C-alpha cells in the first residue's frame, strides 16, 4: 500500500480538483481530506456518512466569577495573554486565545478556574462512489488542527489495511504549518500542485524545504500552466535544479471550474477533454513510481 499526500504551499493552486480527478482514475483507494480547516473534497464526493466521531481538541479554561478574587496570579502566569478584565472588571478567559495549558487552573489559589473539554470538532467515515472517504469538520477558530489530521490519517490507514487497499490519497491543507506537517509525516510520497505565479513558486519552494526535512519523494504537477508561460518556465527550471520530476501539466480551462460547479470530477464531467487524458497519464506515473 502506498500513501500519497497532495500539497501546494499556496492555497487555491488546485489540490482538491487534482485529488478529485485522481479519485476518478485510481482503483482500490481510500481517501482522506487533510484540509480540516476548510474541507472541500466532500462537495465533489457527496459522501454518505457511516460513522461519526468527536475529536477532543483540548480544554479551555473558565473562571468562576463567584469564587475569583481578581488577584491576577493567573494573568501573570498565562503565556498566551488570554485572561483580561471584562466590562465590570472581572477577570475572564478569552476562549479564542486560550491554548488549554491548564496552568491558570493549577496556580489559582482559590480554585476558581476549571477546564472544560471542547467537543466542537467532528470527523466522519463515509461511503462514496470512489470508495471510503475519511473527512472532518472543525468548529470555527479551533486549535490543534494538526492533531486532527493525525487522527483521521490513522483511521484512513486502518481502513486501507482492512480492505487491502492499494492507495491512500490525502488531499492536503495549504501552508507549511502544523496541519501541513501532520499531513506529510510518514506519507510515502508528496504530489505537489504548483500554479505558475510568483507566489505559487515562492510557496512551493518553502514547501519543498519542509518536505526535504522528512526525506520523502516529491512529484510535481503544474496547474494552469498556460496562464503565464514565462513563470511556467521558471517553475520548470526550479524543479529541474532540485531533481523533482514534473509528471503533468494542466492547462487553464473553464471545464475545470464547471466540473466543480456540477459537483463532478473533471473526468466525470468532460471525459474526452485533454485534461482528463492528462490525469490518466499523471496517475500512471504516480502508480509506477
Amino acid at each position, binding site marked *: 500500500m502506498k500513501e500519497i499526500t497532495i500539497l501546494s504551499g499556496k492555497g487555491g493552486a488546485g489540490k482538491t480538483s487534482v485529488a478529485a480527478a485522481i479519485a476518478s482514475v485510481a482503483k482500490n483507494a481510500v481517501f482522506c481530506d487533510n484540509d480540516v480547516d476548510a474541507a472541500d473534497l466532500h462537495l465533489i464526493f457527496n459522501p454518505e456518512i457511516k460513522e461519526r466521531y468527536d475529536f477532543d481538541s483540548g480544554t479551555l479554561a473558565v473562571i468562576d466569577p463567584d469564587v475569583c478574587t481578581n488577584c491576577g496570579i493567573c494573568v501573570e502566569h498565562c503565556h498566551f495573554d488570554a485572561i483580561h478584565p471584562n466590562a465590570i472588571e472581572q477577570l475572564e478567559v478569552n476562549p479564542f486565545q486560550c491554548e488549554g495549558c*491548564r496552568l491558570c487552573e493549577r496556580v489559582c489559589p482559590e480554585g476558581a478556574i476549571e477546564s472544560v473539554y471542547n467537543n466542537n470538532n467532528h470527523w466522519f467515515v463515509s461511503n462514496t462512489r470512489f470508495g471510503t472517504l475519511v473527512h472532518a469538520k472543525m468548529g470555527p477558530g479551533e486549535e490543534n488542527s494538526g492533531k486532527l489530521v493525525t487522527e483521521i490519517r490513522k483511521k484512513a490507514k486502518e481502513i486501507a489495511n482492512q480492505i487491502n487497499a492499494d492507495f491512500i490519497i490525502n488531499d492536503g491543507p495549504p501552508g507549511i504549518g502544523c496541519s501541513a506537517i501532520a499531513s506529510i509525516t510518514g506519507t510515502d510520497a508528496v504530489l505537489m500542485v504548483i500554479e505558475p505565479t510568483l507566489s505559487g513558486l515562492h510557496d512551493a519552494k518553502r514547501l519543498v524545504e519542509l518536505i526535504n526535512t522528512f526525506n520523502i519523494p516529491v512529484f510535481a504537477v503544474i496547474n494552469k500552466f498556460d496562464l503565464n508561460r514565462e513563470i511556467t518556465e521558471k517553475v520548470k527550471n526550479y524543479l529541474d535544479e532540485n531533481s523533482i520530476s514534473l509528471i503533468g501539466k494542466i492547462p487553464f480551462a473553464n471545464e475545470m471550474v464547471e466540473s466543480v460547479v456540477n459537483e463532478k470530477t473533471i473526468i466525470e464531467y468532460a471525459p474526452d477533454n485533454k485534461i482528463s487524458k492528462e490525469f490518466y497519464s499523471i496517475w500512471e506515473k504516480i502508480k509506477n513510481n
Partner: protein
Amino acid sequence: MKIAIASGKGGTGKTTVSVNLYSTFARFFDNNITLIDCDVEEPNDALFFKNRKLILEKEVQQIIPEINTEACTFCHKCADWCEFNAITIIKSVAFAEINKELCHSCGACLVACEYNAITEHPHPLGVISHFDTGIGNGLIEGRLEISSSMQTMLIKEVKKEISENNSITIIDAPPGTSCPVVETVSDANYIILVTEPTPFGLHDLKITVDLLRDIKKPFGVIVNKAGLGANEVYKFLDENNIELLGKIPFTKAYAKNYASGTILENVPKEIEDTYREIAEKLLTKQLQQ
C-alpha cells in the same frame, strides 16, 4: 482603523485585495497606512512591491524549556502538567526530554518543577521584516521558520509591530478558519472576506461567516474572479444580509499580471475604480464608528 483580509479557502485573492487596497488608500486617500502580512506560513505580499527596500529584519525566538537531568529527580510532575504530551520521563534509565515540536511554551513545566531542573532556551520561530514600499508607511511581514508549527505564536509577535499612529492598517490573514486566523483578525475593527464564485469558495465562505459571527466582528465580502463559476454566492449574501463590498472580474490578462507579480503596475481602469469605491465604503464605516 485596522482592516483584516481573510477567506476560508486559499487562493481566492486575499493577497491581491490586500496589496491593491493598500496601494489605493495610499495613492488616493490616506498615505498614513501600513500593510501587515500575517500569512506567516506563505507570506507573498512583498513579491508585489518590486522596488521594496528591506529596512529592518529581526529574528523571533520561541522560548523552549530544557530539562537538566543532573538536577531532575524524574518525579514526572512536569510531564503530568504538560497538556501537549511534549515531555517524556523514564525514571529507570534517567531519561527526561522535551519535544520542541510539541511544546507550546506555556510555562507549566517550569512552575511544576520543584527542583529547578528546568530552564528556558530560545528556539527560532521566524523572521519579522519591515519593507519600504515607496508608498504608505510600508509592509511588515512575518515569515515562519520551516518545520515550526507555531504559526499562531509568530502572528502574535507580528501584530506587536503595528504602530498605533497609523490611520489605516491592512492585515493580510492566512487561509482557513482555525486559531491562526482568529489570532490575526482578533483586534481588527472590520474584516473583508474574499471569496470566489465556486462551490468551494462558497462553502468556505459560509464557515468563515459562522466564525466571524461567533467572535462578533463586522465584515463585508469581496467576490473575486467574478464571472467564473456560478452565482449562488450572491444569493447567499442577499439571504444573510451580508454586504457585498465589490466584485473584481476574472480576466485572463489580469491573472497573467498576478502571475508575474505586476498587478500594482498599470492597473486596469475598471479595477482601479472598484478598489476606489471599496476604499470609500470602508472610510464611511470608519466615520460611523
